[in-house]
């Protein structure tokens, strides 16, 4: 195996992993941008959609349709979470919002355990998604899921970028993210903007959850926890509240993890999560505004 092929393989891995982080981080950052609240239940939006997809395909619904329906279920979970859990405490102290989101995590995960049991279930990826492409005698390999993850992430993130920068609703969201009270006083319907932000953020989480499940082959009630933490780091690294920053942070984090695993000494690999979270601490201490903004305070 020559080093060029090895490098290409690692780049493919990094883009694939970074795409997932970016899709989760973007939602976390969007909700934070508009509500100044860290939605720790965001990872559970990944879970609800994936379970819906598994359930539907078990009922015989064609897989692509089950995927789309699953994403819709994730978006709907986000809308309901906003309506039922977050709206009543909007404007309350930050700690209240934080605790509400943690409570919501427990409610959703335990609901899933109650309905589907806590044991992992297999994610019924159709064969065409597991197809393996190998080049250079297997030195470079990737699956359809890798391709689908990367392309759907890049396309949907570009779409989001267009939506936020070029549509009237996107403009309203940027205005509300900057000053919610002033946005209301120029006639923007804040509730509508927040609901849309939650729907988009949760839809992205749903898509990411599906791709995550397709790569790991299983789903479980707490499947959103680990990606949520990683996405959180990605969002902070990129600058919390910034959509472009979250995308950048997601891909950087993906690259960093693959760098550690693929190129670092073997003894370092087990510590990759520790290194990622150390990075979080470093950023919070020395660059709380993320890579782009040096001195902006972030409250969590």
């Amino acid at each position, binding site marked *: 195996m020559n080093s060029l092929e090895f490098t290409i393989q690692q780049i493919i891995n990094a883009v694939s992993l970074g795409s997932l982080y970016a899709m989760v981080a973007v939602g976390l950052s969007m909700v934070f941008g508009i509500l100044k609240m860290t939605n720790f239940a965001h990872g559970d939006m990944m879970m609800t959609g994936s379970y819906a997809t598994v359930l539907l395909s078990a009922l015989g619904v064609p897989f692509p349709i089950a995927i789309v329906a699953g994403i819709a279920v994730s978006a709907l979970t986000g809308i309901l979470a906003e309506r039922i859990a977050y709206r009543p405490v909007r404007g309350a102290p930050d700690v209240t919002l934080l605790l509400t989101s943690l409570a919501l995590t427990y409610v959703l995960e335990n609901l899933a355990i109650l309905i589907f049991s806590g044991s992992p279930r297999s994610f019924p990826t159709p064969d065409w998604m597991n197809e393996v492409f190998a080049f250079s005698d297997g030195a470079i390999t990737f699956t359809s899921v890798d391709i689908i993850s990367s392309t759907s992430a890049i396309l949907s993130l570009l779409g989001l970028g267009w*939506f936020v920068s070029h*549509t*009237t*609703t996107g*403009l*309203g969201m*940027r*205005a509300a993210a*900057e*000053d919610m*009270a*002033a*946005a*209301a*006083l*120029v*006639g*923007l*319907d*804040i509730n509508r903007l927040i609901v*849309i932000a939650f729907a988009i953020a949760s839809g992205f989480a749903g898509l990411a959850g599906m791709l995550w499940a397709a790569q790991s082959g299983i789903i479980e009630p707490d499947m959103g926890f680990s990606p949520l933490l990683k996405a959180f780091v990605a969002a902070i690294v990129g600058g919390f509240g910034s959509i472009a920053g979250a995308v950048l942070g997601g891909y950087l984090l993906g690259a960093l993890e693959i760098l550690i695993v693929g190129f670092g000494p073997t003894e370092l690999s087990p510590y990759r999560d520790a290194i990622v979270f150390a990075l979080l601490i470093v950023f919070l201490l020395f660059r709380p505004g993320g890579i782009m903004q040096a001195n902006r305070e972030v409250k969590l």
Partner: protein
Amino acid sequence: MRKTIVSAIASDKSPAPLLKSQALSKNFKGLQALKNHNLELYPGEILGIIGPNGSGKSTLFNVITGFSPPSSGTVVFDGTVITGWRPDRIVGKGIARTFQGSRLFKALTAAENVEAAAQRHDRPGLLSTLTHLGGYARRQAAIRGRAHALLELLGLARWSNRRAGDLPYGAQRRLEIARAMATGPKLLMLDEPAAGLNTHETKELMGLIRGLRDGFGVAVIVVEHDMDLIGNLCERVQVLAQGELICEGTFDVVQQDARVRGAYLGHD
């Protein structure tokens, strides 16, 4: 326009007031920031509100615009009771305001600031936005067009694509007015629009405000410390002190009032 209103009031065949607030009070933890305040404003009228700092002027603005609902009392605007409405609904009904100090969206461009406010009437639905069908382009163009016309009118066209936060101070103040006007108001409420402006800029501002009234027929309530502006611009003046209305009338009348002088000389 102005003449008809003034004569209508004078001849007692007054048109229905545009804004009528009755017995408005606002309490903050034992402090009565506004006490039993009454106000009638007619379409196209320019009313000044003056008073020492902390006399309740900004509180009155906040209460009328739904920013912080009154503790008691009612606000009737254009024939509808709007007390306790959400701010964006009140804007939709036709009251727009600016803030003491700036509340612009500083990271957005000047044009985006105004377009955000101009969405009120022409915002395409979400489906239309995503599909670009159902008159999306027409609505988008209407929003852009109205925003551009206002930027032009307030002398901000050349700043259109600059970040609002990077604009010179005077331009930022005018941008706030443009943004408020973009909502298509019947009543424009200006909270210290001349603060920080020099005499020349203040004079220009008076011309602009009068122009908006004459051109769009908006009524204007202006809170200001600049007595030159109040005296020149306002047809009627209310004086507040410690949350209470202590005097109302033309600027000349108000100036002669003993209570007003007392309040400003600050013996209490």
